[in-house]
């Protein structure tokens, strides 16, 4: 039995990467940028859901002009002076440059189909959507903002897990975000989670699993431990749909799988029900 515990990692990619970001990894159809954008990054041929960036996600969900971002000034620090083959600070700087984001989560006030809510959206492009101190703090503030304004919280997750460059402090973001959700629950505000590909490890083992309603996009990997690590450590034969949203729904861990273009109306309906 190997002692290797890879349960929290950030580069757990279940499918081989497509040759080109605009090529569908499932049916190999190729699209122009504007075609993909218009289709909300869903393959018109086979329905494969491409990764979606946080800003585009927000634009696809909220009423036009209703989003007002919060906690924009938060940036990661380097509490451990972490250095692997490159310093953590360099990895952050590079992620900031390439994504135009301050960290892997955007939070803010919004309205969806005229229902006011608080929104917290993750971006996998920022260091694998990993949860460090900034993501933990932003999510907690989103809970507080929802409590303060008396509105529900909607979170869209996409993350490889905790950010190991922040060491044990990244693990502490699990209880931190859970404490915030419990405060939200005490205030009797609804919490709706949309799990996008992938929602794994530390994020699944914390706030993402605690929504009143759990939705997922088709084909999203939703697992505490990803398939590669399970295979390596246990040498078990994996079922074809191991860890996918479809399997999670069958085993009772999700309420519904919702295609991307139906997420906004679904959230609108849920917000009306909880409102």
């Amino acid at each position: 039995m190997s002692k290797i515990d890879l349960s929290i990692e950030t580069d757990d990619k279940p499918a081989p990467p497509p040759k080109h970001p605009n090529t569908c990894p499932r049916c190999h159809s190729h699209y122009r940028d504007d075609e993909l954008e218009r289709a909300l990054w869903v393959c018109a041929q086979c329905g494969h859901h491409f990764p979606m960036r946080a800003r585009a996600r927000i634009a696809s969900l909220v009423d036009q002009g209703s989003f007002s971002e919060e906690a924009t000034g938060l940036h990661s620090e380097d509490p451990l002076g972490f250095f692997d083959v490159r310093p953590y600070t360099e990895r952050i700087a590079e992620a900031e440059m390439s994504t135009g984001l301050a960290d892997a989560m955007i939070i803010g006030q919004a309205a969806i189909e005229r229902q006011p809510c608080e929104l917290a959206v993750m971006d996998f492009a920022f260091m694998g959507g990993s949860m460090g101190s900034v993501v933990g703090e932003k999510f907690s503030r989103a809970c507080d903002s929802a409590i303060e304004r008396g509105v529900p919280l909607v979170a869209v997750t996409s993350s490889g897990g905790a950010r190991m460059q922040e060491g044990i402090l990244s693990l502490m973001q699990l209880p931190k975000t859970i404490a915030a959700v419990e405060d939200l629950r005490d205030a009797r505000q609804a919490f709706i989670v949309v799990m996008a590909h992938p929602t794994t490890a530390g994020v699944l083992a914390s706030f993402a699993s605690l929504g009143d309603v759990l939705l997922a996009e088709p084909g999203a990997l939703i697992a505490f431990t990803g398939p590669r690590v399970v295979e390596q450590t246990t040498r078990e034969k994996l079922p074809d749909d191991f860890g996918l949203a479809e399997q999670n729904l069958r085993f009772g861990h999700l309420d519904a799988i919702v295609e991307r273009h139906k997420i906004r109306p679904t959230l609108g309906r849920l917000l009306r029900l909880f409102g």
Partner: protein
Amino acid sequence: MAPSEYELRLRERLGRLRNVPLLGGAKLSGELQRLQRQLDRIAEEPSGDDIWRSVELARHAHRPYTLDYVERLLDDWFELHGDRRRADDGAMVAGLGKLGGRTIVLVGQQKGRDIQERTRRQFGMPYPEGYHKAIRAFELAERHGFPIVSLVDTPGAYPGVAAEQHGQGGAIAASQAAMARLTVPTVACVIGEGGSGGAIAIAFADRVLMQENAIYSVISPEGCAAILWRDAGEAKKAAAAFKPDAAHCLELGVIDGIVPEPAGGAHIDYREAARLLGEALREAFDDLEGVPGDELRRRRRARFRSLGVFA
């Protein structure tokens, strides 16, 4: 005479420690002596070699496990079995016992000594069933007003197909959420490996302690090395980089105190290791004595919500 470099470093540590949210609490002003004791423990910054020594001691085959401490610390131990849903997870132990004459609930991960027991207890890696068993024990404690001791010793939650199908991530989240709701005093101690989500699942406590040679980390050194160095053989370098040792965890405010071990490590003298752990547990519970339940819960949540470093 000018203060020595050693003294300056201590002073600086003291200053930093005072800024650590929990240690800076009002109750602490009268406890300088205890703080000083903790300070002495972290006076010397552990080197990469020291950290690796902790990793090896934390995983030592003869290190005392949860039930070794139960045997030496608790009277009238009665073990609870099963999660009341579908199974009894051998990697997670729960039960009732008396600590210093008072009934408590104890939960903890349990590794095995021989190959049969190791297999039966999955090397201390719980399935979701193990976390549901812990939740059941937490709720029992809450109903009856029993304080909770939680002993953490796991390489991580079990990474298998059935574990995923039974909802590993959700179970770990639910266990922490259950602890976040408790109004009884809770003390957790990492007694060996505090491996990632599998560990924090039962460590959302009012006081979090670590034995001197225990480790507490977001990922195993091998796992971190495999990802960032692309070579699991670089585990020692990885451990030196993410600093899973008790001294660093105390400095970061993640734990509240370090429990000393007998010279050479807990495996040298089980009785002495248990005595020292018992003393630390009693001290922690004394500290929580008389705090109303809803205030305990408020402070517990505030404690964890304050963890993190950002600008």
